[in-house]
């Protein structure tokens, strides 16, 4: 390179640097976490992370401070995605290698179409609250009209009255939230296809999009949940959608969420995660070490226990067959195809809330202390004994 070129590139570099500094030194008043872009952070892989997923090409995890991190080849370092919000993410799911959604607190939904490198805001909590208000006032009006012109049985009338009560209560909440701001976190997202995406959350919130997130429909009242229990998890197999949550509630829908049936629950405590494995078995896991597996789409369940009674928070297929499970206090377990159980405790004792395996069969768990990697689970169990 000759001297002039060096000089020119130095000038360009200086200019670039100074714009970077300028962008950096913008003054923010009235900080709003929903709209503050996620900070680029070197400690991102060590932050609180809640879920981890995998596409054909990437492993991607989400968590606190608007963090979405990903890596391509198993050994490469984690990179941080460009995310337009700093909220606490609770769930992530991809429909294919490019299309994915992440949800979290403050009613935020973001989406990617480039495999997770950059993300766009699809819904924020203020819009969500407005939409809730519109939705429930419409619902109240509809129910009131129905009641006025009602001529059915007393039981049916009572049902309508209950529904009206619920809708009015929700409307009040939405109106309150207009001043207070969105307080209901979303807790899970499930992408069935590039168009069909389901989101569940606290106090019985449920959303569906049928156009890849351009519009979101509120489905709260489609599920019979008069106590407003949290809906913690949503999953699907070839036939059904499943939603499970607080107080052992399990629902199943055969019509893309239009209507839901309440299943006979094997447990009265909270379920935190659901999973459909390679054998199309439905797994439900939750509070105090409760693990259930169903081979008949949730009609009946078999109970499995690990050694410890800690919360179990996530399930994933193990490459050698069976499933891995992770839970609080660093518990990592493996249930093989014959329902034999093996368990270890990660020395960090961190609560683990997401689990995935990578292309090399390595186990990746995320939780309180960020990403934890276990090269060989069986050896790790062995070493602990």
């Amino acid at each position: 390179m000759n001297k002039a070129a060096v000089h020119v590139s130095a000038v360009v570099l200086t200019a670039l640097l100074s714009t970077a500094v300028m962008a950096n030194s913008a003054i923010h008043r009235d900080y709003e976490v929903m709209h503050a872009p996620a900070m680029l952070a070197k400690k991102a892989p060590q932050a609180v992370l809640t879920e981890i997923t995998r596409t054909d090409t990437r492993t991607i995890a989400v968590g606190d401070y608007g963090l979405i991190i990903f890596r391509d080849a198993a050994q490469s370092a984690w990179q941080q995605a460009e995310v337009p919000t700093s909220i606490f993410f609770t769930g992530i799911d991809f429909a294919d290698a490019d299309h994915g959604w992440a949800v979290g607190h403050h009613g935020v939904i973001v989406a990617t179409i480039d495999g997770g490198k950059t993300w766009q805001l699809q819904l924020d909590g203020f819009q969500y609250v407005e939409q809730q208000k519109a939705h429930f006032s419409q619902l109240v009006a509809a129910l009131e009209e129905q009641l006025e012109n009602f001529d059915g049985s007393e039981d049916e009338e009572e049902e309508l009255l209950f529904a009206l009560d619920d809708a009015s209560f929700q409307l009040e909440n939405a109106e309150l939230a207009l001043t207070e701001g969105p307080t209901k976190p979303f807790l899970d997202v499930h992408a069935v296809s590039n168009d069909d995406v389901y989101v569940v959350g606290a106090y019985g919130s449920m959303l569906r999009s049928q156009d890849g997130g351009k519009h979101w429909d509120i489905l709260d009242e489609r599920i019979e949940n008069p106590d407003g229990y949290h809906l913690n998890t949503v999953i699907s197999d070839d036939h059904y959608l499943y939603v499970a949550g607080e107080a052992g509630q399990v629902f199943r829908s055969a019509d893309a969420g239009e209507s839901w049936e309440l299943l006979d629950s094997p447990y009265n405590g909270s379920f935190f995660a659901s999973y459909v494995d390679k054998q199309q078995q439905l797994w439900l896991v939750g509070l105090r070490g409760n693990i259930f597996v169903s081979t008949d789409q949730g009609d009946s369940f078999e109970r499995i226990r690990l050694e410890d009674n800690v919360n179990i928070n996530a399930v994933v297929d193990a490459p050698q067959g069976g499933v891995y499970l992770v839970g609080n206090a660093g518990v990592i377990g493996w249930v093989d195809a014959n329902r034999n159980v093996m368990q270890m405790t990660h020395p960090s004792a961190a609560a683990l809330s997401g689990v995935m395996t990578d292309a090399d069969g390595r186990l990746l768990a995320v939780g309180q202390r960020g990403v934890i990697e276990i090269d060989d689970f069986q050896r790790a169990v062995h070493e602990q004994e």
Partner: protein
Amino acid sequence: MSKPSIATQSVFLERLLFNVRPLWLLIFTLITIFLGWQASQVRPEASFTKMIPTEHEFIQNYFKYQNDLASLGNVVRIAVETTDNDIFTAEFQQTLQQITDEVFFIPGVNRSGLKSIWTPNVRWSEVTEEGFVGGPVIPDNWDASAASLEQLRTNVLRSGEVGNLVANNFKSALIVVPLNEVNPDTGEALDYQQFSQQLEERIRDKYQSDTVKIHITGFAKVIGDLIEGAYQVGIFFVVAITITLIMLFWYSRCWRSSFAVLACSFIAVIWQLGIIKLIGSGINPYSMLVPFLVFAIGVSHGVQIINAIGNNSVAGHSKIDAARIAFRSLYIAGLTALVSDAIGFTTLMVINIEVIQELAIAASIGVAVVVLTNLGLLPIIMSYAGVSKRGIRHTEKQQTKKHQLLGFFANFTKPKWAYTAIALAIVGLGWGLVYGQQMKIGDLDAGAPELRPDSRYNLDNQFIVDNYSSSTDIFVVMAETAPSQCIAYDNLELLDRFSWHMENTPGVQDVKSVVYVAKMGAFGLNEGNLKWFSLNRNQYVLNANTSRTPPGLVNADCSMAPVIIYLNDHKAETLETVVAAVEEFNQQYQQDGLELLMAAGNSGIEAATNSVIESAQNKMMIWVYSVVIGLCLLTFRSVRTVTCIILPLMLTTVMSQGLMGVLGIGTKVATLPVIALGVGIGVDYGIYIYAKLKEGLAAGMNLDESYQYALSHTGKAVGFTGLTLAIGVATWIFSPIKFQADMGILLTFMFLWNMLGAMILIPSLARMFANLSRKRHA
């Protein structure tokens, strides 16, 4: 005979002193008794606030919330370690219980805050279908059986105290002891030294055994160890006096003169301490240096006096006349030198840290006192005592004998020697400049930098850092809000961002604040579901989530929440990075009703101290050198002369910075004054030598003869002075207090090097200038 003329030639001061000698003796005796009584009440103290720059913005902010932060900071940690496999044995638990009980009764302990696995406030909890269940970590039906111990192990694991109250390797357990700064019953301030002693006697001495090891850390223990270390300095003083006495005798061969000089110098120390007590100032581990300096300065001026008296006695004068002539010939030179010392010391007043200012005041008072005792009292005493026959004989012999060492120094007026010396000096200068670059601001060692890295305290500290999940380098940012707004959603949300910003700052290990409590609370209250580890806009939810906030993380009226930033170390660069990161955040995010104020915590205060030191460093250098150059110009009225005197001083300053770089001694509260002291005292040598050199030149001698004349008159005394000063401070190198040792090393180096610089470089430079001007004329 010339006898009558001696009295008639006398000046006013001399008449004032010698005409009423008994009266003066009486006055000196009375004052000494009174000030001695005062001095006997001086106790070493280590006041925290005096060691910090109280005017600095950080410290002002800290003072504003000092009381709110007290429960956060002033904690002693006692680690009880077992040499067995783990702590789950009946014997160990019994010991731990006994120690916890014993600590409970030590005065100064905040009993309700005391924590160990044996205190009822340490509980385990678990989420069940019905909600929270929990209980004390020690099982209710504890009977030290195997079953109880197993239950205890389970409870400890569930309690989340591993890394906090129980070591990560289960081989030790902590007792966390918060202290009351003020006794709530008596209103008396906590006596750190007494408290520290009680810990030693009632805990360490009593319970340490072959199988149980005790490790104690905390600010109170540092202060206790500092004061204990300070008492040892008393021993150094005795050592310094003994060595000085031996040197005095070796020099004078006269016990009477030796003891007179020693006594007068000692009286100077008594007076200095007494006056300090009278004006309400104290003596701290820094100003403890002053008595050593005063003593050494006293001795060096005393030596001049007895030297002169000895010479006069050889010349046949009577005791009283010898003393009178000595006084007459020396009082102006002595006064000038002492005044320049005093002015040199007062330049330290520009540094706004009380211990340094106290040191400056104490040193100035000390020097003023030396004028009275060693220029006033000493000649009077000697006029009665006189120099012994043996001493006179020795002086006579010395006068006739050619001194070997002085002969060596006399060589430096020869061009070859002079240029070699200057070349070597330039090499030394280069060395100093290169290694001076490595000199750092602040303290560089881990743990409590006041104490030595291998002190028991720092080993204990290392043990706790290694085995528990906590750093001891803490930087606290105070989040200030309107009253009862400290946990308002908007404020917490921005604090959360701030925490993440700081966590990603290089050198930061961890950040904890009420925000973390709120998020953990949400996690816990939502059945231990990590997906709730976040802040909620609903204030009632936030209030519930923060209901278990430990004391200290929000203040009483909820107008301040400290953000505690744990650092890897307290190196100056780390602190600067952290301060810059906070400033950057404050610049970017401005929210009405929320101020992020720096700084508290040991590292926060150190950051403030470092910034004051850094800006004072150059200011002080400029002052000291301006004063010294000004004084020299006033005395000699020649730029060339001043250059000859100042250049060697500058060489010493630069080289001592190189030494600091090489030895890893940082510029800090303790070492900053050393440069001023070194320059202030160092200039004396130059003044004495050049004065005589000039005298010789004026009398028509050439440079070689003039320098020999100077050496024979003052050179010997200058050498002696350099040695006595160096010995006075060299004993400090063995102090258990790290910064005293650092001061000792640097002052010893400066005193010796300044002395050599004066005796070698002044003639060399004089030769160089002489040759240069000769060439120009030719």
